[in-house]
């Protein structure tokens, strides 16, 4: 009774409070349990969560545009896409710089493919422009070289732009030994005098040494550097007079002459490559897809398109995905329904037969699992085609005229038949295991209470088998929503699913962003349906067994 008078916290044997002692013991237990499941947890995270996260990321990711054309997209910010004018000349000059670098890095065609999803023709526009952009700035290079032979040699430029300590290291670098090339360092203070040329040279040097893996001492400088140099010199920078570097004299001499240089009209030069460059469509697409993240893929997934004026519906003859989503859901429902109709009696028979016979029949039910999906589907082709087994039999029986054989394949019927067969075990198994747990005495009780066979089944047996139907339906429905091999083979044009388009975009068009957006929508639809199911039927009402 002394405990009841004790007012402080309960103490464990070692004097710590009982609570903290208990917590410690429990924590150790939890930690041990966590360590036990850690490999599985990591496996699930890596193989399940990570791909889904990656997919969701891809469906909005759009960094390629601003990464490839950083200067252009930045300058486009001021351009009014609704105006009738094409962007200002500065934008074209920025485009020249971006395209030049992208072409050297072989990234321009990749961007072309990306934007071609949004505007037909961009792919070849970029491919074509890439080759010609390299020549565009040569006007400046030629004039510099005509001015002084000094400008012809890459080594001279290295000496001008490179920091002295880098130059020493580069000179000491022995190409035959395995050491890495000393990393280029810009002469300090030069970027204030020659800002554009310094930047261009820096990009050139880093690319040559890095991605290209070439010896900078022997490389031939890009034409881009000369056009940048022209821009810098024509502004007559203040620091030029005081510049102390190899080639500073040549630089000053050039600065005195650049005013007489022939100049390049980049707008005209791009127009010469392709008149599409001066069309607003191309620029609108570039501007629309400038942000690093986009909802464009999602809009495409619901038959809309992202335009400068906001989302718009696509033309009637281009609408596809909403129709496919609806068709996928509808057909999955039909397949689930036919699986219930066929699977319920089979499961009932299995559950009510003696164990020995039931096991034998169960093997027959599971047999489809042991055959490859492709073989099963192809077998249905042989069965269902117009010269196939079923039609031949019907004609032979005289039920169908030879010239009006039934079209059972290459349409929705084919998909429904083949997929019902393939997914049937997923319905039968949960149904069977639930029915196994319903004692026969319930039916007897119902009959003894005066119920007919049908009433006893419908009011007593059936409600108790509903959890099995629920589990089977969820399995079949979700599996069928994601099927694409079977619909592809037997579905023709009216029996294909949204997954077929996803597969197409993954493997053929390489439009992974759109595929990811379609997949994300499908995932959302499935989760939504699951939520609705939980609200209406209750997820507790799903039993896979026992």
């Amino acid at each position, binding site marked *: 009774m002394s405990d009841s008078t004790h007012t402080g916290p309960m103490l464990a044997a070692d004097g710590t409070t009982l609570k903290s002692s208990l917590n410690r013991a429990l924590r150790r237990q939890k930690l041990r349990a966590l360590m036990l499941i850690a490999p599985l947890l990591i496996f699930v995270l890596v193989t399940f969560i990570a791909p889904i996260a990656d997919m969701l990321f891809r469906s909005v990711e759009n960094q390629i545009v601003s990464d490839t054309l950083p200067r252009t997209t930045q300058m486009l910010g001021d351009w009014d896409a609704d105006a009738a004018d094409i962007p200002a000349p500065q934008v074209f000059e920025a485009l020249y710089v971006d395209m030049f670098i992208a072409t050297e890095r*072989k*990234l321009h*065609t*990749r961007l*072309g*493919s990306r934007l*071609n*999803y949004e505007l*037909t*023709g*961009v*792919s*070849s526009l970029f*491919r074509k422009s890439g080759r010609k952009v390299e020549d565009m700035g040569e006007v400046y290079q030629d004039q510099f070289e005509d001015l002084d032979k000094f400008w012809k040699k890459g080594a001279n430029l290295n000496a001008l732009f490179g920091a002295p300590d880098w130059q020493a290291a580069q000179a000491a670098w022995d190409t035959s030994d395995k050491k890495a090339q000393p990393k280029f360092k810009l002469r300090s203070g030069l970027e204030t005098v020659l800002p554009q040329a310094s930047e261009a040279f820096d990009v050139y040097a880093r690319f040559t040494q890095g991605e290209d893996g070439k010896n900078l001492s022997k490389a031939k400088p890009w034409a881009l550097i000369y056009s940048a140099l022209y821009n810098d010199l024509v502004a007559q920078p203040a620091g030029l007079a005081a510049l102390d570097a190899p080639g500073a004299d040549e630089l000053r001499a050039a600065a005195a002459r650049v005013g007489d240089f022939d100049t390049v009209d980049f707008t005209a030069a791009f127009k010469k490559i392709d008149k599409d460059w001066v069309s607003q469509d191309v620029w609108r697409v570039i501007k629309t897809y400038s942000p690093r993240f986009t909802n464009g893929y999602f809009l495409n997934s619901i038959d809309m398109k992202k335009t400068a004026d906001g989302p718009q519906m696509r033309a009637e*003859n*281009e*609408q*596809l995905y909403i*129709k*496919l989503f609806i*068709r996928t859901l509808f057909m999955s429902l039909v397949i689930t329904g036919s699986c219930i109709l066929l699977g319920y009696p089979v499961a009932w028979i299995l559950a009510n037969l003696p164990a020995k016979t039931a096991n034998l029949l169960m093997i027959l039910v599971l047999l489809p699992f042991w055959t490859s999906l492709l073989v099963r589907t192809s077998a249905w082709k042989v069965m269902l*085609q*117009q*010269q*196939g087994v079923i039609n031949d039999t019907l004609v032979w029986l005289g039920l169908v005229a030879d010239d009006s054989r039934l079209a059972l394949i*290459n349409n929705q019927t084919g998909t429904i038949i083949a997929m019902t067969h393939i997914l049937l075990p997923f319905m039968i198994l949960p149904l069977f295991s639930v029915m196994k747990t319903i004692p026969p005495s319930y039916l007897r009780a119902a009959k003894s209470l005066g119920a007919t066979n049908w009433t006893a089944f419908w009011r007593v047996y059936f409600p108790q088998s509903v959890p099995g139907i629920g589990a089977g339906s969820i399995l079949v429905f979700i599996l069928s929503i994601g099927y694409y091999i079977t619909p*592809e*083979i037997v579905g*023709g*044009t*009216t029996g*294909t699913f949204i997954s077929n*388009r996803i597969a*197409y975009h*993954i*493997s*053929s*068009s*390489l*439009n*992974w962003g759109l595929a990811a957006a379609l997949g994300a929508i499908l995932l959302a639809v499935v989760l939504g349906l699951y939520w609705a199911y939980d609200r209406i039927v209750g997820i507790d009402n799903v039993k896979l067994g026992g």
Partner: protein
Amino acid sequence: MKLTKTLLATTALTVAAGFAVAEDMTIVSWGGAYSASQKAAYHDPYSAKTGVNIINDESSAEAVAKLRAMNEAGNVTWDVVDVVASDAMRLCDEGLAMEIDADTQLAPAPDGTPASEDFGELLVSDCFIPQIVYSTTFGYRTDLVGSTPPTSVCAIFDTQTYPGKRSLEKRPINNMEWALLCDGVAKADVYDVLETAEGQQRALDKLATIKDDVVWWSAGADTPQLLADGEVVMGSTYNGRLFSLIEEQKQPVAMLWDAQVFDLDGWIIPAGLSDERKARALDYIMFATDTQRLADQAKYISYGPARASSAPLVGKHATLGIDMAPHMPTDPENAKNTFLYNYEFWADYRDDIDAKFQAWLAQ
């Protein structure tokens, strides 16, 4: 102690395996008779000559997607990949295939003609070395067309004379061109017309006249099977498939050489290989695309060699013993009215027209 030993042993094994891998080369192709012809004509002689062990991977159908995935993962396991020209262009655009200079990295013709001239216009991409010329053409059941076997590609639109189903590939490429040709567009103008939305609609409208009679195929083996089963009266497929259906399986099928679409299949080398592997892949390609090797492949399969200099060297079929030249899509008799596939056009319009085509199919 024991753990250390195990680790050491494992490391040693891995290193040893690494050296073993150095002598392996993974070549990706289409599988089936086509891979077999490559093995006989290229792989076996190359292995005999260099000792390199060639591993065949039959993934060409998914090559584009897989190469992109490998590239993103930074672990390209393929050395040489066989793809169709349009895929090669896409891979090149995506930076997934390396550029190959024909004149410096390929063997010249026996008479010294540089490779770029020998291949000529067939070098449609900087990354692509063509290997064969194939054509997509039509086969028809000789027993189902009555006394007037078709002579023109437009027979596919003539359901009056040739009732029954016809099989077409489930994609716009080729079908759109044929539709316009049979709608009265001159061959030279087909792509100009197809560039416009009206032209695309015109092609779809023409296809709509036979929409109910078409079985759409997606695998190359489909049409031969459909013809053999009598499911279709005519259908498009690759000429090599029809050759084996007619000459090897002796089915009552004949080939229609009209407005068949010339296309190319060939090699690319994935971007991002190590210098060592790149060098070996280039060495293989130089060997496998020389004049004699390309002519050799025609002994096993009825596709035309991509080099002009190989054509005179085409001999007899290795097992059937029949003269292969008349079965080549490049044979003058067969190539009287061919249609040249416009790669540039489809690289631009594929996504757009495919979307419209699929929307049309789903209607």
